[in-house]
């Protein structure tokens, strides 16, 4: 136990030292806790009231003994299960079991089970925050079914056992993935698993979307899922049974969590950790006789950035959002006889908003890859701005392509091509500007972790989101003016022209000038010095 607390203590110390190492003052631990508590309260309290209201509104809906509140608890539990198993597992395999300090820890006189336990706790700290967001749903459930206080405590104890089941399964899968997959293979696994999450999100969104409809419609939508969600082999079903004080549920949740945790502990204690290899052995095939392609230097750089972008899961996720959200909107409005005009406007508008905000972050991620590589780029015979122009070009093209493809498909299905196409065309210049702003943001506000997945600190992320929001607003206003001006019939034509076209264009120009002014101020050699300076 002493060794475990020592390992965790130094891990916390290491995390808190990262900002200091970057020459910046670290934020005290309690400030982080306060921020997290604030975020939790800001999201959790409205969620609680929303669910209390929903459960009471639809209290008459019962599917063979399972109420809508029951079903929502189960869906939340499945959501956490998907989140932990599907997204955290490869992350655990990649970041924890394959992390550099494992080899060092294994060389110390510490038992493997202690190392495993410390790594599992690290994972829970890193990935457990989303699990807190189930608490408002559980609290709303407790309120709806009038649970006495001791049952509420029991419910949260059960939730801890439930979370242990997920962590144990996740750790076991991570152990397996780490054993058989390479680092890059694990990254590809992450892309695949994230797509599963998106499918889950689409289903969930269409279910949540139905809550605005009448009780009959809600009943119809959820009746399709009740058998799947309430399947007896799912831990979420055991959890619900436990909340209803059924012994079978209680025993299954507690028994399974203890058994799986013990198996994970035993597997880790019996030397499997030392058998890990960070890569599969090199093949015997010699490939140096393969054909090579020589390109012009600038094209070579762009081609390299396209490859890095395609292979970086965090950037791919950002690229998927502007395509997937219109799909969610379409799915959730299908067959509901909703306002078609609103849908036609909302889809491009949301997509442009997402593209604009994620352009900044995606560029920052791509720049972070270059920063990680360090001095190498500076030793190449290319202009210092070439790598940064290349990144802005690649990211802008990628988001523009995603939007064009998405809207082409949707327009082909639903008609009305003018507004989406005009909006996309107007958004391309602003995406380029925002991409350059992403370059600036990476240098100005690097995250203390300095990672590719989180390239910007909180200030940088907020400013970037703000800039993205502004840029998207300008592009959308221009798009509405040119492509959908029938909605502006209530306005004086001159005023409409000024507000929806001249002002946004001028604002875009100002934003571009400011971005390039900001960029011209910093030393272009500096990005590649971050964290890489070694002066012996």
């Amino acid at each position, binding site marked *: 136990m002493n060794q475990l607390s020592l390992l965790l203590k130094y891990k916390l110390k290491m995390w808190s030292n990262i900002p200091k190492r970057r020459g910046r003052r670290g934020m005290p631990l309690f400030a982080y806790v306060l921020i997290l508590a604030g975020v939790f309260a800001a999201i959790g309290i409205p969620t609680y009231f929303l669910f209390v209201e929903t459960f009471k509104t639809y209290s008459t809906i019962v599917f063979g003994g399972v109420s809508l509140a029951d079903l929502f608890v189960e869906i939340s539990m499945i959501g956490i299960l998907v989140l932990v198993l599907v997204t955290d597992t490869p992350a655990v395999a990649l970041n924890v079991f394959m992390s550099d300090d494992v080899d060092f820890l294994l060389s110390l006189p510490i038992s493997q089970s202690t190392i495993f336990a410390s790594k599992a706790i690290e994972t829970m700290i890193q990935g457990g925050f989303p699990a807190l967001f189930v608490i408002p749903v559980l609290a709303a459930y407790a309120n709806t079914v009038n649970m006495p206080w001791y049952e509420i405590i029991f419910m949260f104890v059960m939730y801890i056992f439930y979370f242990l089941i997920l962590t144990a399964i996740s750790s076991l899968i991570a152990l397996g993935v780490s054993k058989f997959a390479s680092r890059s293979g694990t990254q590809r696994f992450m892309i695949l698993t994230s797509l599963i999450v998106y499918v889950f999100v689409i289903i969930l969104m269409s279910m949540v979307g139905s809550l605005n409809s009448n009780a009959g419609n809600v009943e119809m939508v959820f009746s399709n899922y009740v058998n799947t969600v309430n399947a007896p082999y799912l831990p979420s079903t055991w959890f619900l049974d436990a909340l209803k004080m059924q012994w079978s549920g209680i025993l299954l949740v507690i028994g399974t969590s203890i058994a799986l945790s013990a198996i994970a502990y035993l597997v880790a204690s019996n030397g499997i950790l030392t058998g890990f290899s960070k890569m599969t052995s090199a*093949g015997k*095939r010699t*490939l*140096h006789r393969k054909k*090579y*392609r020589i390109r012009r230097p600038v094209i070579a750089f762009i*081609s390299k950035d396209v*490859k890095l972008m395609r292979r970086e899961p965090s950037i791919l996720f950002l690229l998927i959002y502007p395509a997937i959200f219109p799909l969610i909107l379409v799915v959730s409005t299908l067959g509901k006889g909703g306002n078609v005009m609103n849908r036609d406007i909302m889809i491009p508008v949301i997509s442009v908003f997402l593209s604009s905000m994620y352009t900044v972050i995606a560029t920052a991620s791509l720049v972070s890859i270059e920063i990680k590589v360090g001095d190498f780029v500076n030793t190449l015979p290319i202009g210092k701005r070439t790598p940064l122009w290349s990144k802005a070009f690649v990211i802008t093209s990628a988001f523009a392509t995603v939007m064009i493809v998405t809207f082409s498909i949707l327009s082909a299905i639903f008609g009305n091509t003018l507004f989406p196409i005009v909006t996309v065309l107007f958004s391309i210049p602003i995406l380029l500007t925002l991409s350059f702003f992403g370059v600036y943001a990476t240098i100005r506000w690097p995250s203390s972790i300095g990672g590719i997945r989180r390239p910007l600190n909180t200030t940088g992320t907020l400013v970037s989101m703000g800039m993205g929001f502004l840029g998207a607003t300008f592009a959308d206003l221009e798009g509405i003016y040119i492509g959908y001006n029938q909605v502006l019939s209530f306005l004086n034509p001159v005023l409409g022209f000024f507000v929806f076209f001249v002002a946004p264009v001028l604002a875009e120009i100002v934003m571009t000038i400011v971005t390039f002014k900001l960029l011209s101020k910093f030393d272009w*050699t500096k990005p590649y010095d971050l964290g890489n300076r070694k*002066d012996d």
Partner: protein
Amino acid sequence: MTELVRVSNLRKDFGKITAVKSISFKINTGEIYGFLGPNGAGKTTTMRMITGVLVPTSGKVEICDLDLEAHPIKVKSQIGVVPDEPKLYENMTGQEFLEFVGSIFSMEKVEMMHMISELCDAFEINFLEKFIGDYSHGMKQKLVLTSVLMRKPKVIFLDEATVGLDAKSAKILKMLLRKYADEGSAIFMTTHVLEIAEKMCDRIGIINAGNIIAEGTLTELRSESGKQSLEDIFLNLTGSNEEDVKEIIENL
């Protein structure tokens, strides 16, 4: 004999700290120049300034008769740099990386493929189809060496290049560097392994606290210091002698 590298009064300040005070040296064509010094002496900072990675506070660097500050791209197209810690694009394969470097340096395709083939055979590289993120340190080092040596640059800079290489690859590297020097390249290498410097280098510069404190051929250094081995010369010049070392060991 042509001077391929001319470094004059190079200085680098990081805020109030001066990492390199005033360094001047020259490297001729066909010469292997060893740059030695204790930890924190300023070796890597010097190398980063000469290779255009770090802008010096003052001083001048000329490579192949070109001023680095005025013609950075032309200079960089003449040099190859092997860092001590190879940091590469983890999501690229080795083959893609070599193709990228070949394109950036506008190499002839046939020549590039021939050189890659030769160097892969020499360093026993059979992992080019794998992602760099899956490479060990030694594999990355071999890839970087291949990306530099395939171009046959006029000047090669190596920072502890043998670290991480197996004995055979290290031996091949040493022989290749000698061959490249004999064919007219200039080699600048830093190393902590004094035996390597003793056997390979035509001239040696010893840096301490940001200044070059001794420079010359091994024979010149021996006659100046009165010591025979490079280890003794080095320890003597950097403020430690055999008695000091013995005392430290005895006190432990």
